[in-house]
């Protein structure tokens, strides 16, 4: 059967479609609850996907991803607290709109722009990913090793506010990935005699710990809030909150600009939706000039932020599918889930498993459309999720974390790995060390080591092939440029901060 029809047939199966609907609903709810990010939602779902067929597993994770990012805007607009970090820029104008009695309008605009941004980037994914993959198909071990090392450096440099902390986190991820049997000789590395560690550290407990358990410990330090979010949309003026087609069409240009910014950021590994939404917001504010009312409830602020963060979703799949390089933490999790399903990500996926590529396209499009269809009439229902007190929610999440980590290999050791990762994630969060580089480096290191050792075995230990390879040299030039730019940016920020402090004194 043609792979396209095979994917469509699999996608239309009742179990798969029901999974998509459920994951979109759950993604909207989890995204809406402050403290439960998209990363947590996807991380908690991965253990379940182990027992599912590949198409159903992908549909579930992608549904949670797209809907979760939009869900984050609900609490950003209604509570002035983003449900996910990606919605942080939505607060600037979303919350003032809510204070003016326009919460429903802000939420609807947020949903429309999220759908627009997502569809824009999915179109880009369908156009660009196969081209990039066909270019990458000619890569040998030297190019693959160079590309993966480039990713390691880029995620370290661009994630978070500090170049050093990002690279430190990525280096630690690489160390953790070396636990287990050596890929070429089978020599056990750092297993301490444990047979359970021969396969290495399983990524399910690691990611559940880094994202979900770290957040639970963080909430525990605040004593798990018992208060209910006081949100009521029923008293709002319905006419003032209505959105006309003319209004939507009038905002097509800001939506397109923000979607383009989000897509461009999404293609680069390690930056993510948060930066994209801030950049798009700044761009919308700059382009509006004196006509804008940004910061005081300008709808274009919500539109820019939400179009951009959802445009990241499709775009992050471009390097993920075409090169096997995750664009952000969630696509790193998806990449790991694909490996668990026995699918090798990278350019060969377009040759060996085109049906899975089509399933991912369908899942992205389907989840976006469902998000619009379910989300639009369910604004009031979604706002009710803000009333769930953390004292009941977080312990339940903790239980799911433990069960999920255990079922990955039916081994209690993984529960301890989860706990250790949770403590590490908590410490990283408190010291502003980004967690995403650790996870991405952990996932790409096995492929990097394999390619590097193949290349060096061919050249009998000589690094000369790397020195003369055009792909490797281009990547080195890009990294040098990025390091220079980052050091300049951080120096500029430091001097600006010092100037502000001097003026304050």
């Amino acid at each position: 059967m043609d792979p396209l029809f095979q994917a469509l047939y699999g996608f239309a199966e009742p179990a798969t479609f029901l999974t998509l609907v459920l994951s979109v609903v759950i993604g909207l709810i989890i995204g809406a609850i402050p403290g439960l990010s998209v990363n947590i939602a996807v991380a908690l779902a991965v253990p379940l996907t182990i027992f599912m067929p590949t198409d159903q597993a992908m549909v579930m994770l992608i549904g949670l991803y797209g809907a979760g990012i939009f869900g984050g805007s609900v609490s950003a607009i209604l509570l002035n607290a983003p449900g996910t970090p990606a919605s942080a820029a939505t607060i600037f104008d979303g919350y003032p709109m809510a204070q003016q009695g326009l919460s429903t309008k802000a939420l609807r605009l947020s949903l429309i722009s999220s759908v627009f941004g997502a569809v824009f980037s999915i179109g880009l994914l369908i156009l660009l990913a196969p081209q990039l993959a066909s270019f990458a198909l000619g890569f040998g071990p030297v190019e693959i090793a160079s590309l993966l090392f480039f990713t390691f450096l880029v995620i370290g440099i661009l994630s978070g506010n500090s170049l050093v902390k990002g690279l430190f986190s990525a280096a630690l991820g690489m160390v953790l990935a070396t636990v287990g049997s050596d890929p070429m000789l089978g020599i056990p590395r750092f297993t301490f005699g444990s047979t359970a560690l021969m396969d290495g550290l399983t990524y399910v407990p690691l990611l559940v710990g880094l994202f979900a358990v770290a957040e639970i410990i963080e909430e525990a330090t605040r004593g798990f809030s018992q208060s209910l979010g006081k949100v009521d949309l029923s008293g709002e003026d319905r006419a003032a909150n209505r959105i006309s087609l003319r209004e939507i069409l009038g905002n097509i240009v800001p939506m397109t600009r923000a979607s383009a910014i989000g897509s461009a950021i999404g293609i680069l590994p390690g930056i993510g939706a948060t930066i994209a939404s801030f950049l798009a917001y700044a761009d919308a504010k700059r382009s509006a000039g004196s006509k804008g009312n940004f910061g005081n409830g300008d709808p274009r602020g919500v539109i820019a932020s939400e179009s951009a963060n959802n445009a990241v979703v499709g775009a992050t799949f471009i390097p993920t599918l075409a090169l096997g390089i995750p664009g952000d933490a969630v696509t790193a999790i998806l990449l790991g889930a694909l490996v668990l399903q026995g699918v090798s990500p990278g350019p060969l996926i377009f040759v060996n498993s085109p049906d899975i590529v089509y399933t991912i396209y369908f899942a992205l499009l389907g989840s976006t459309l469902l998000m619009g269809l379910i989300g639009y009439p369910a604004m009031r229902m979604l706002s009710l999720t803000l009333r769930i007190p953390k004292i009941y929610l977080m312990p339940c999440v903790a239980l799911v974390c433990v069960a999920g980590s255990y079922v990955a290999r039916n081994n209690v050791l993984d529960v301890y790995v989860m706990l250790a990762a949770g403590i590490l994630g908590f410490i990283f969060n408190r010291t502003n060390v980004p967690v995403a580089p650790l996870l991405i480096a952990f996932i790409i290191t096995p492929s990097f080591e394999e390619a590097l050792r193949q290349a060096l075995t061919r050249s009998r230990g000589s690094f000369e092939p790397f020195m003369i390879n055009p792909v490797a040299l281009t990547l080195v030039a890009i990294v040098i440029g990025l390091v220079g730019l980052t050091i300049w940016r951080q120096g500029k920020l430091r001097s600006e901060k010092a100037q502000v402090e001097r003026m304050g004194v």
Partner: protein
Amino acid sequence: MTANRTLALVFVVASIVFLTVMVPELNQQQASMGGGFYSVGPSALPTFAGAMVLLFGVVMLFTDRPVPGEAGAFTAGIGMGLLQIGLFGAYALGLSTIGFLPASILFLAAIFLIYRAKNWLVAASLALGLPILVDALLRKIFLVPLPGASFF
């Protein structure tokens, strides 16, 4: 010393131990297994990665500056956080000794008790109902048994 510097110091010491004690053991293993054919052995990547942790740890240690207003931010509420970590540890131990259901019920009950859940009806329903639901879901639908005896 700031929290960042303490973190950096811990990882600097750990990476030195890693590079000087743990990695050389790999080379000995490779030699004993006759893996000399490969010019790059199993210790190459761990050496590189460990050196990177050491390098960036040292840079963090010497370049980190205290941020005004953030003193004490790392330790805020840390007692409750450590308590939660202890509860997780006890839960993991309980999982392998008394089984999933009793350990989960005790874990949830302990959290609701320690962090003083206001509505005891909700707390009791969750503490009893959720573990049974998760166990049944995993066993019946995904055919994965959790450790210990079950009610079904």
